[in-house]
């Protein structure tokens, strides 16, 4: 993708900036929302607010996107940095039934799934902010090389850290 500014109006070649923004919003909303959910212990309302804030930043920076990284890396950087910026609001947020992401399943299955989500968010919430970002991107299936680019760390360092965080998370889920 190539962006250029002509006559004071920034445009993506062949497609307007607003159309490009809409495409980015529609194509990435769910994954950004999931990342934000991980930072707010599964609180759907807060994650929605945070996701909106992420896309506000995407809009205000889109014209200056210069292909120095992939759009995915760029988006994740904005998303994680926005979450870090709002850390103060989220800290010590308690997980309640009402604000937790709702399962579509019924009865016993729904209860079990809700319990699992709660457990998963509790464990993710206990991680340090950077580790949280790393594992949330890993859970989303982002390649480790790309995670390294988002974080500004070496690939090797990311590989080691992911291994460590996975162990930490597994222990937490098992209450060890």
């Amino acid at each position: 993708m190539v962006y250029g500014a002509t006559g004071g109006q920034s445009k993506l070649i062949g497609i307007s900036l607003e159309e490009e923004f809409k495409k980015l919003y529609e194509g990435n909303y769910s994954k950004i929302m999931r990342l934000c959910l991980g930072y707010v212990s599964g609180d759907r309302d807060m994650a929605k607010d945070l996701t909106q804030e992420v896309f506000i930043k995407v809009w205000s920076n889109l014209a200056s996107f210069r292909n120095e990284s992939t759009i995915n890396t760029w988006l994740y950087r904005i998303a994680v940095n926005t979450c870090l910026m709002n850390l103060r609001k989220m800290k010590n947020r308690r997980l309640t039934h009402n604000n937790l992401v709702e399962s579509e399943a019924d009865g016993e299955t729904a209860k079990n799934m809700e319990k699992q989500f709660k457990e998963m968010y509790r464990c993710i919430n206990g991680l340090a902010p950077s580790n949280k970002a790393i594992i949330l991107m890993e859970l989303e299936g982002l390649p480790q090389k790309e995670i390294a680019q988002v974080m500004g760390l070496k690939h090797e360092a990311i590989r080691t850290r992911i291994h460590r965080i996975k162990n930490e998370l597994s222990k937490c889920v098992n209450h060890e």
Partner: protein
Amino acid sequence: MNEFQQVKNNWKEQPIEEASVSDFLDLKKRIKKLAGKQRITNVVLLSTVGILGVFFFYIGAIDFSDVALAIGTMIAALVIRVLAEFFSISHLRNMTATTSIQDFKVRLQRYYRNRIWVHLVLTPLLLAIYSFAFWTLLPDFKVSLSKGFYNYIVYSSMVLLVFFVLLIGIDVRKELKMLEELKRD
């Protein structure tokens, strides 16, 4: 299946709604509103400083009487503190979010350290200047106000001072907690 794989499966099973047209329209409205809000904040802030400046000259500060000088000092202390808060908030809002997480974290830590400096150095200094200026006004108040009202002013200002000191303490604790959290990894 190991525990992490289980967590990963759960992660993908989360029922997340897709982006809706109404959400996108809400977002566009919010973007438009934010730009307007920023302009309004700037206008309000500039007008406040302007009005206080006019008020300062109106009450006779121009002849440098002690009373006017004290009131002027109190106003200046307040304006400096409000401006420090305004710039701090806008600095955080305008922090470039497109850099790598490591770079961003370093800048965020610097931001919180600056906030602690504001709370521990600038604010107490301004509070001391404000209190001193207020203290110099007390003899004039005693002469021109009724005893009851004078006592009310003295005691309520003491309560306010304690309240502000507590507020500073709470804020410093919060900023320190954030710094600690950011330094965790």
